[in-house]
């Protein structure tokens, strides 16, 4: 191959790459491809545990992700909360990340408004509640293990948690049959160490795609019931609930971008190998 052509392929202007990435992201947003999604056993592990809880059960949801992760995390957060309310479960939210509070408020109000429109109004304090941001990281979880209400004292609206009907019968973190942790950091480790290992609470991890590979070790050790990782996990959860949401639509763009990146990697490598071959030939001459 001509050396000029090889060099051109080896130094494609980054602006061309940026424009192509933008185009392949935008195309499915304008015209969805409706690609099918296959459900994996990791996502089923979370879905089945929530699905088999009897109506009226209380589920704790930890909103531990930052605004930067909302495009990836919000679809799965909405899916899991929607699943809980569809099954008449009671949702109690909590955050140990200060900015997780805003995300929790947005997700909970979005889903409760949706149920309101569908003619099934949900009552705050009875069907759902949000404890707000609680400082202390691991120590907060240890405090929740010993005395859940004592560690919370008040919810995010300033209500006394001791008088909230939804928390009747909850003395410790171990009184919850399930904990769904929405996270974009390594906080899941503390929930496992001080929650699962001490009081045996079952945990489902819902996280960004970048965090997922790191917690497969916990899954295989039985410390997690399942993993919902990134947009892919979110799209699988949406499929299990029977609708195409933001995660499923986002998978169209993700598919195209993955293939675009692979094409660029292949172009770069073919050009690199061709250049190496030319250099070897020149050396032999």
């Amino acid at each position: 191959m001509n050396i000029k052509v090889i060099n051109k392929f080896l130094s494609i202007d980054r602006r061309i790459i940026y424009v192509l990435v933008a185009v392949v992201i935008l195309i499915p947003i304008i015209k969805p491809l409706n690609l099918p999604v296959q459900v994996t056993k990791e996502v089923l592990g979370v879905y089945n545990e929530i699905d088999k809880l009897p109506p009226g059960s209380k589920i704790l949801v930890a909103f531990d992700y930052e605004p930067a992760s909302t495009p990836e995390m919000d679809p799965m957060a909405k899916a899991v909360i929607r699943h809980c309310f569809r099954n008449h479960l009671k949702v109690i939210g909590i955050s140990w990340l200060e900015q997780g509070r805003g995300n929790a408020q947005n997700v909970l109000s979005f889903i409760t408004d949706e149920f309101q429109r569908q003619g099934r109004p949900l009552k705050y304090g009875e069907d759902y509640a949000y404890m707000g941001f609680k400082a202390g990281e691991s120590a907060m979880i240890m405090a929740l293990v010993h005395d859940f209400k004592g560690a919370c004292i008040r919810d995010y609206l300033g209500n006394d948690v001791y008088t909230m009907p939804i928390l009747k019968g909850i003395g410790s973190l171990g009184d919850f049959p399930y904990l769904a942790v929405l996270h974009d950091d390594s906080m899941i480790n503390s929930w496992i160490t001080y929650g699962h290992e001490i009081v045996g609470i079952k945990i489902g991890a819902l996280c960004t795609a970048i965090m997922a590979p790191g917690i497969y070790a916990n899954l295989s050790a039985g410390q997690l019931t399942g993993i919902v990782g990134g947009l892919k996990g979110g799209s699988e959860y949406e499929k299990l609930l029977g609708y195409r949401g933001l995660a499923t639509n986002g998978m169209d763009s993700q598919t195209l971008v993955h293939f675009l990146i692979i094409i660029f990697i292949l172009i770069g490598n073919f050009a690199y190998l061709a250049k190496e071959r030319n250099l070897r030939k020149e050396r032999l001459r």
Partner: protein
Amino acid sequence: MDFFKRKFPILVVFVVGLLMIIAYYVPHKPFNQFEGGASMWYMIIRSFALVLAFTSLIRSHYLKIREGKLGWGYSLVMFLALIVTTVFGVLPYGKNNLFGTRSGTIYMWIFDYVNTPAAATVFSLLAFYIASAAYRAFRVRTIDATIMLIIAIIVMIGRVPWGEMFSEFMTSKISHHLVFIRLDRLTSFLLNYPTVAARRAVYIGIALATVSTSLRVILGVERTYMGSDE
């Protein structure tokens, strides 16, 4: 004076550390009560760290503005953001729906329309940088790099619908003997076995290092947390 400056903190760390270890393994009275109380104390003390962070933030940015250092304008923006969010977030919620941190307040408006889009935009830029970096850096220069490249391509294809569709097509339409090139299953294998093995080794290393550092602190060998002698 030396007792309160050097020996007393070591004694406190030794006693509390030992009690916390016992409480973890003996979750019965009185150790569990101590653990519960200590956790509450930690949460309270930790909240005061916010005051320290607030003061430190104001001090460093104030100095930057006063001395006219490079980028002092950003410090002004920081002060503006700090004042606006604090005022609207801390003042009590009223009928006017302006103050407080509930949905519909100005604080939440800032969170929804400034904080979230700005943070998400910066994070989203990664998609562009990763595409460009992958093209430039992923080269089959060595055997290690080639293995990494092949695995990256398998996972990238196996985790998206086209990869799943391709795998399904190959096994159901062409031949079920082609099951070994089912990229979705190969991806699942890579995540469930080699990744777990490597991760577990890292976890064990972290755990051993944490135990050794904690023991050094509890036994008073590691004293850097008390600052220098001067």
